[in-house]
């Protein structure tokens, strides 16, 4: 969610201004900043924003209010994409005409390939995300490991998982290997979840996608297939969102360089001043796991930053 570009958040907020419209989103998205606002503030100003735990709950909501249009914000990686795909298929099955998805899904392997091929970054190994890998399977990283010679280890999320994954990566680097290894074998199989992948394929097609801080990456996102375009909220977007001043924000926020490991949070002028966890600008401050949020919260010199 933190790599969702401001433009798409602006778009979603703008859609909420349409008459008779209800916005539905995962709670994660509520405080992610667009150009001038976020959903939490828009809700306080009167937009009808509902938090759902599952896209199928959004379909249920739409079903219960046929006189209104419900727009769900499809965000996240391969972990959330299958459920959103399923919600579109379910809406189709029920013949709903008031359920829409603003699709901002992103894919992990193309992003890894983009990072690996960037001549300015020197990556020695990838810790591959466990939850995404439960869907796409550990084989999905083979191309990255082979084509770019970078070892990959699929890891779980507990502290010991991460430690073991780092140990496995160091082992590979020391032995000059570049393989895909699976530390998280208790949840991830080589092939992943085929049913979930079929759902994704059914409702979505590959498209180039814009990442906050990383720019546009070819074939790294999902669009709703033509057959289901009646559920695609982008058909409701008539014009470019107003006041989209992503440029000015981009000027002070070093999010891209920080995401790529080329700069530390403290090298950003906005860090701790214009950009704080309470009022984040970039993705790295938006997400509580982001590099900037962690630096701000856990730094031993926190007070200096605030002063």
């Amino acid at each position, binding site marked *: *969610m933190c790599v969702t570009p401001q433009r798409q958040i602006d778009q979603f907020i703008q859609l909420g201004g349409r008459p008779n419209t209800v916005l539905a989103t*995962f*709670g*994660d998205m*509520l*405080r992610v900043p667009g150009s001038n606002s976020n959903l*939490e*503030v828009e*809700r*306080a*100003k009167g937009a009808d924003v509902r*938090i759902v*735990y*599952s896209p199928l709950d959004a379909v249920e909501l739409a079903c219960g209010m046929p006189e209104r249009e419900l727009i769900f914000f499809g*965000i*996240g*990686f391969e*972990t*959330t994409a299958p459920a959103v795909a399923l919600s579109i298929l379910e809406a189709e099955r029920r013949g709903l005409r008031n359920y829409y998805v603003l699709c901002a899904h992103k894919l992990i392997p193309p992003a890894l390939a983009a990072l690996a091929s960037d001549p300015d970054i020197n990556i020695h190994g990838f810790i591959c995300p466990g939850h995404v890998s439960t869907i796409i399977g550990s084989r999905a990283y083979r191309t990255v490991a082979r084509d770019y010679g970078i070892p990959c280890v699929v890891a779980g999320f507990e*502290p*010991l998982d991460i430690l073991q994954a780092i140990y496995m990566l160091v082992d590979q680097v020391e032995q000059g290997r570049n393989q895909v290894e699976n530390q998280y074998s208790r949840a991830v199989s080589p092939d992943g979840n085929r049913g979930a992948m079929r759902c994704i394929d059914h409702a979505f097609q590959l498209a180039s996608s814009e990442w906050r801080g990383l720019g546009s990456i070819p074939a790294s996102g999902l669009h709703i297939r033509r057959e289901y375009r009646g559920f695609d909220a982008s058909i409701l977007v008539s014009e470019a969102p107003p006041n989209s001043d992503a440029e000015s924000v981009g000027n002070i926020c070093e999010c891209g360089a920080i995401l790529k490991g080329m700069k530390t949070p403290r090298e950003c002028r906005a860090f701790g001043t214009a950009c704080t*966890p*309470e*009022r984040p600008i970039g993705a790295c401050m938006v997400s509580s796991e982001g590099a900037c949020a962690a630096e701000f*919260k*856990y730094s031993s010199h*926190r007070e200096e930053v605030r002063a």
Partner: protein
Amino acid sequence: MKDEIILLAHGAGGRKSAVLIHELFCRHFDNPALNAMGDSALLSDGMRRLAFTTDSFVVDPLFFPGGNIGKLAVCGTVNDLAAVGARPVALSASFILEEGLPVEVLERVVVSMREAAREVSIPVVAGDTKVVPRGSADQMFITTSGIGLVPESLAAPAPDRAAPGDAVLISGTIGDHGMAVMTCRERIRFSSEIQSDCCPLHDLAAVILDAGPNTHCMRDPTRGGLAAVLNEIAAQSGVCIEIEEAAVPINEDVRVACELLGIDPLHVANEGKLVVIVPPEEADAVLGAMGSHPKGEGAAKIGMVQPEPVGRVHLRTGLGACRILDMPSGDLLPRIC
């Protein structure tokens, strides 16, 4: 940069609430009793010490496993009195009702207020009723105020009295109330229903102060959870509080629900627990007294007060690492991605 409008986060007991209280309310209402920032204000007429507190209750749904808005409204105010060592004397109750509310619902709420007040032997001596047009309030809001008497001999526990070396105790499992309400509201089902811990703590507080007359701090960790209360104490006392993560009691269902929703149980509200900070020589006595009281089953020593870094709460994790336990930043949001 300041917020221009009120967000739900301003009422969630985290950092935004703190900023609003300090920079708006305290700035304008500025006075010593308020600025002490205890759960109740302490007043004196020269002869007796009075504790005075008020609290508003808005909860969706009105009825949840383990309680309802009425029981909550009595217990919440009683517990704010109990936390400063006061014996509750009287309550007031004001109701804001939405047009169309069934009288039967109101009566069920009032009956459970009567039951809770009876358990504390405290009368509800004053009240008020307002009705607003449909849509102007969500069913019913209740405000209760309470007064209590603080024994002359007691050095009342206060959030600025924690001292290095003190033991940090909790009277039982954390997160039960917040997760009971959230899982009930969102209809998230687990093998068993999570029950709110909502209950009056006047008797437990009395037992604690009997066993530990030098108790430095006593707070009931409601909105913002254990994390918010410990951060407030650390800041007001000018100390560091170090907590052992593994020692903090959490019900398995609550732990699972929190993990599923990406919520830190240390940020989740409690309505029937006390955090107690006592000098080391009284720790065992207080812990024993709590443990032998039915409302203190599962009491545990969870940490210690350190001299520095001032204003910080540290959490020692199961792996032996140390992390900063911060205030929750706003409304608790379930995380899916």
